[in-house]
């Protein structure tokens, strides 16, 4: 193993751990303040949305709202299935089948 690669890996590991542990360590003794708690209440919705929507609308890095965008079509179907069934296997299974069919088509 090359030593410069080793140092880079260790550095990446340290900063990644810092981002995951930083706020936890900060609020360890004080608890999380009320105003922050109110703000944080909507973090899950905000994070999930910002992880999903760009993946579906910009799968290749540019905005693609067309029938050629398989991610968008499969995403809309998956959203409907998720709404109706609340079932993760059904949603993922159907979404991936649609991805595969569109690809082979």
């Amino acid at each position, binding site marked *: *193993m090359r030593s410069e*690669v*080793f*140092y*880079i*890996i*260790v*550095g*990446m590991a*340290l*900063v*990644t751990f*810092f*981002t*995951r*542990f*930083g*706020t*936890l*360590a900060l*609020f*360890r*003794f004080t608890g*999380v303040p009320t*105003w922050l*708690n*109110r*703000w*944080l*209440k*909507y*973090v*899950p*919705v*905000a*994070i999930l*949305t*910002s*992880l*999903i*929507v*760009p*993946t579906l609308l910009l799968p290749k890095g*540019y*905005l693609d709202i067309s029938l050629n965008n398989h*991610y968008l079509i*499969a*995403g809309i179907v*998956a959203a409907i299935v*998720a709404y109706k069934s*609340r*079932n*993760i*296997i059904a949603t*993922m299974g159907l*979404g*991936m089948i649609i*991805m*595969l069919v*569109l690809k082979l088509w």
Partner: protein
Amino acid sequence: MQLSNLLSRKYGLAEEACVALRECTPVVFGIIPFGITCGIMGLTAKMSGIETILMSVFVFAGAAQFIGITMLGAGIQAWGIVIFTTLLVNLRHLIMGSSLAPYMTKLPFPLQALLAFLLTDEAYALTISRIHKARYSVHYQLTVGTVLYLAWVLSTAAGVALGSYISDPLTWGLDFAMPATFLVLLIPRLVDRISLSVFGMAAVVSVLAALYLPGKWYIIIACLTASLVGGLLEGDKENA
């Protein structure tokens, strides 16, 4: 009495672990193609198999690793740039960490550190959904984190082993498993006006930011603005 307490605690532990295993199975299928891709990318970037696998063992951050490997492959040996980019890409975890902090502050320090090491987008999403549906469970979070970690390390190793046989598993559409998982976690949360406003705001901001800003900044910016708007609307509701 003590025995029954102990038994019920044990039972609770086993139950939470079972629920965790069941709920993270589809996510594991979403992670495997990324891990395999990571292993293959490492080799194509002229890293050794051991270096590639160790990066997954120590760093455990998909997006940051893809970017780091790409930079190493492009001959960028300036460690400062690679590490700083990793920091930027992972800044979103600061938000997730503080979102879980209220539940984790009473845990022993080493356990907090371990859970923090295992905190990924997927582990966060599953844990926060479990809190939403039932309550916070350290066993749930630990099981999810450990399973996803093992899946990531083993699939990276599989990618290194498969090496030249598969060119790019992400072109098979397997990467759709990830947004599909997140959709199932998101949609049950969109039940009131504020949540829908936050959703709309995050959607618009993330797309605009993804178009015009580099890297993963779109996640951080969309998350901060949309959740702040949600918090302000929530404050209005409480004061009204």
